[in-house]
């Protein structure tokens, strides 16, 4: 009996390994390996002092940001930003949430051309020419969109294009969840 159960174990071992490996690999399917989790979830937005796109002499700091809001990282050099722009225009028209634009590593003239041609969905556009604010936010490409709460804490970071589906399923629930928690506390 001992020998038989030992044999059985030996024969079942490869099967068990196969099933385990299959489950492990299957769980990775459909995931985008280039999508990184933000390290700043729960933290306040970084301290900064930058100029505005429309008023180069004016300065905007982190204290001027009023959450809850979206912060959208974009640039005229980024093809996907053209792709998501119409949806931000629509969101702005609905006036459901404040939207801040972070013009990331762009030229002022090109950025202005982009906005003049396609419209301005942003409440403010922060100019981050050297990209340091982007790095402080852990940005590794454009477009990226951050959801911040009433305390200016980062709740969520979305990498890639924002469209109706992303807004409804990923961004909006996080915003409303935050406001609900706030009202519950009060």
């Amino acid at each position, binding site marked *: 009996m001992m*020998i038989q159960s030992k044999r059985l174990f030996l024969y079942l071992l490869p099967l068990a390994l196969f099933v385990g490996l299959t489950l492990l690999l299957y769980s990775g399917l459909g995931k985008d*390996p*280039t999508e*990184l*989790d933000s*390290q*700043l979830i729960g933290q306040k937005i970084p301290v900064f002092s930058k100029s505005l796109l429309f008023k180069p002499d004016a300065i905007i700091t982190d204290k001027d940001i009023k959450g809850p809001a979206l912060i959208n990282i974009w640039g005229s050099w980024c093809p996907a930003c053209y792709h998501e722009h119409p949806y931000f225009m629509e969101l702005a028209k609905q006036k459901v949430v404040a939207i801040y634009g972070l013009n990331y*590593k762009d030229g002022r003239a090109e950025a202005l051309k982009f906005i003049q041609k396609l419209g301005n969905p942003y409440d403010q556009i922060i100019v981050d020419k*050297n*990209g*340091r604010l982007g*790095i*402080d*936010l*852990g940005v*590794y*490409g454009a477009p990226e969109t951050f959801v911040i709460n009433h305390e200016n804490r980062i709740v969520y970071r979305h990498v890639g294009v924002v469209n109706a589906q992303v807004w409804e399923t990923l961004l909006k629930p996080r915003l409303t969840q935050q406001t609900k928690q706030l009202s519950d506390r009060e």
Partner: protein
Amino acid sequence: MSYLIPKRLFLFVLLIPLSFVTLSAFASIDVYSFKDPSQELRFAQLTEELRCPKCQNNNLADSNSPLAKDLKDIIYEKMLAGETDEEITHYLKQRYGDFVSYKPPVKPFTWLIWYGPFILLLLGAFGVYRYMGGRKISLSAQNKSAISNSSQSLIDQWDSEKGDPEQPNSSSVQQKKQENDEESPSQESNS
């Protein structure tokens, strides 16, 4: 003398591509200048150990992406400001996570990558030990039976040469031989 000129020209033409090679090889290093070579070495080691968040299978040293360039600029600035490697790595990890380092930290989540190979090695060593041990036992069992068989045949031979008509021992010898045959396979399956 006249044949020398084309030869020189030929050599010169051969050397042209070589000059390009050296130029491109040093182009990426020359951007950052350091006062002492040890700092330069530190910079080279650090940018090799850190991963570019944008182009994920490159380290910072090899990557040409704008983000990698910015991060290298930051590392350079911080190094000149006297920050240690740990401080710089910590700065990047705060923003991009453990992902940026090709040296993952040892914590429960990463135990498998750190200790997995050693566990596999131990398992392999155990398997080899079991396999070799088993072989030794079955070999010695086979040898034993081979020896007893040959001694048996010698006894048989001796008996037949003696030409004893009664052969009083032959039945017991046969029995012993059967016992041996029964024993040896069971020993093998035990191993």
